[in-house]
């Protein structure tokens, strides 16, 4: 049987988190009434002129720096001409010959923790189109142009990915970069990150690429994986049956879990790109680029390495915690309060994440603040409470019972009894109340005693209502029982 290799390249459109549009002062806020955020420039009214948004430029440059790309001194805007009702000007202002971000690379992390590099061909700025609403308006289509002119950064990869998993890891890496940089909210459900996937297959060992199909608008991590899996299968079957893959655009249908060819147009698209006469060349000198570099936060890969090398976390923990900026910041705040990175990592990835997942919350919405969790961990580390009591305290914080771990420990009387005298008193009582068990214990050999002591520990803990320090109970019990 023939061995096939999958070749994947991605075009990812990232909606930039600017306040206003790329070429106009209209708002980009999501969810406004239709056409209330489409101004004369966005509508392509006669006589208007676009003026480029400095923040869109800054965001694109920061992205370029984050992927080690070259930032050319000059970039140009061009017109991509086509007719569609949600594109009022009859062209999309975009970039082709001289994009704002040149070749770069992104480090991706696979499930097994290994990393590899995916090359970026380039990234360019362009404007988004409006939205067509195909519900029935008396046999007509409704057009909302609020989104027209929203800045997009289109990130084009080289065909460097060889599996759906690598493609997903790549998108996740991009997602982490843009959200860390704060240049996009990365919300795939609202369309802030949209993905076109180019897929082809070739016999393993063949150097030339096979014919590719482009799958449009794949808008979640899971759909990327499914769309690629389906498409690879389809192409291999087609070739095995003696057919040929045709270069075409396909749509992924998440409901039927398949890709379908879009109606093939008789003519190939001819966008007739030409330099936009309304926009002058954009010049960015070294000082500007350095200034943007200075404004950049620590990036996910840098954070991951620091968590691993300076804080001593495992590669896995470091990877999970650095995967989102919100998670990383929460973790570091917890660590700063409690002073122990490993404990902070365990609690954030354990109890906290479990609760967040159960209630389907993002870390930003956590009812337990980083300060509260840090305070709780402190009380475990200084032996004020047992690990078991800590879980109770966490739940109480989660439920909003009090403002701090200390208040809950106090109110519930969870403070561990570490006073040897008090514990000894309880032990003596338990020994006095359990003559049969004591006799059995003392007759048993050392190997069995280990197991039998559990009964006494349980009794003492019960007597202390869980507040005795279990290690202390254990060692004091052993002394007393072994004594006679």
């Amino acid at each position, binding site marked *: 049987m023939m061995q096939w290799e999958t070749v994947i390249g991605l075009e990812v459109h990232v909606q930039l988190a*600017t*306040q*206003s549009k790329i070429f*106009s*002062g*209209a*708002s980009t806020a999501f969810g406004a*009434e*239709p*056409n*209330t*955020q*489409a*101004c*004369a420039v966005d*509508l392509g*009214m006669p006589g208007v002129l676009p*003026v*480029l*948004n*400095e*923040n*869109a*430029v800054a965001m694109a440059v920061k992205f370029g720096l984050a992927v080690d790309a070259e930032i050319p001194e000059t970039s*140009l805007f061009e017109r991509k*001409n086509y*007719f*569609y*009702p949600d594109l009022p000007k009859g062209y999309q202002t975009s970039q082709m010959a*001289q994009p704002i971000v040149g070749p770069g690379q992104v480090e991706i992390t696979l499930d097994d923790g290994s990393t590899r590099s995916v090359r970026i061909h380039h990234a360019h700025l362009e404007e988004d189109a409006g939205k*067509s*609403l*195909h519900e029935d*308006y*008396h*046999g*007509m*289509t*409704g*057009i*909302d*142009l609020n989104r027209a002119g929203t800045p997009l950064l289109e990130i084009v990869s080289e065909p460097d990915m060889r599996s759906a998993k690598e493609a997903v890891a790549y998108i996740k890496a991009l997602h982490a970069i843009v959200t860390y940089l704060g240049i996009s909210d990365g919300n795939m459900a609202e369309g802030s990150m949209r993905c076109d996937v180019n897929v082809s297959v070739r016999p393993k060992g063949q150097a030339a690429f096979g014919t590719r199909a482009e799958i449009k608008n794949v808008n979640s991590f899971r759909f990327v994986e499914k769309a690629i899996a389906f498409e690879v299968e389809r192409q291999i079957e087609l070739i095995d049956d003696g057919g040929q893959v045709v270069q075409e655009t396909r749509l992924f249908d998440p409901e039927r879990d398949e890709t379908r060819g*879009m*109606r093939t147009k008789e003519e190939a698209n*001819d966008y*007739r790109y030409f*330099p936009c*006469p309304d*926009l*002058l*060349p*954009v*010049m960015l000198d070294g000082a500007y680029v350095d200034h943007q570099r200075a404004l950049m936060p620590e990036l996910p890969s840098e954070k991951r390495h620091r968590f691993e090398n300076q804080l001593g976390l495992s590669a896995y923990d470091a990877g999970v915690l650095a995967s989102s900026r919100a998670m990383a910041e929460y973790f570091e705040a917890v660590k700063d309060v409690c002073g122990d990175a490993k404990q902070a990592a365990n609690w954030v990835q354990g109890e906290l994440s479990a609760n967040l997942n159960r209630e389907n919350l993002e870390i930003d919405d956590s009812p337990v603040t980083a300060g509260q969790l840090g305070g709780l961990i402190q009380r475990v580390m200084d032996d004020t409470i047992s690990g078991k009591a800590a879980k109770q305290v966490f739940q109480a914080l989660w439920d909003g019972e009090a403002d701090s771990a200390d208040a809950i420990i106090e109110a519930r009387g969870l403070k561990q009894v570490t006073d040897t005298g008090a514990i000894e008193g309880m032990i003596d009582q338990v020994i006095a109340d359990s003559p049969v068990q004591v006799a059995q214990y003392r007759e048993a050999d050392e190997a069995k005693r280990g197991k039998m002591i559990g009964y006494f520990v349980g009794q003492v803990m019960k007597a202390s209502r869980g507040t005795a320090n279990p290690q202390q109970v254990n060692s004091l019990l052993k002394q007393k029982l072994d004594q006679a």
Partner: protein
Amino acid sequence: MAIEHADVLRAAHLARVGLSEDEATGYVDDLSRILEMVDQLQAVDTQGITPLAHPLDATQRLRPDEVTERSQRDRFQACAPATEDGLYLVPRVVE
């Protein structure tokens, strides 16, 4: 470089301009003369010269990222042939 009848029709189609056969024939001559002039320009040796993107010797001014526009939907939609629920209505688009 000469232009053919089919080229004119194709260019008209791409620009969504309706042309009659007679008009198309006229444009074959007009456009061919323009392309002859372009041919003269093509003869100039431009080796090593960076293509000029814009005739003005200036660079793009950048605008601060501020919302400066208010909704003027009613005014814009006053000249639209059909609107409903704030939407512009257009002949049905089928993908």
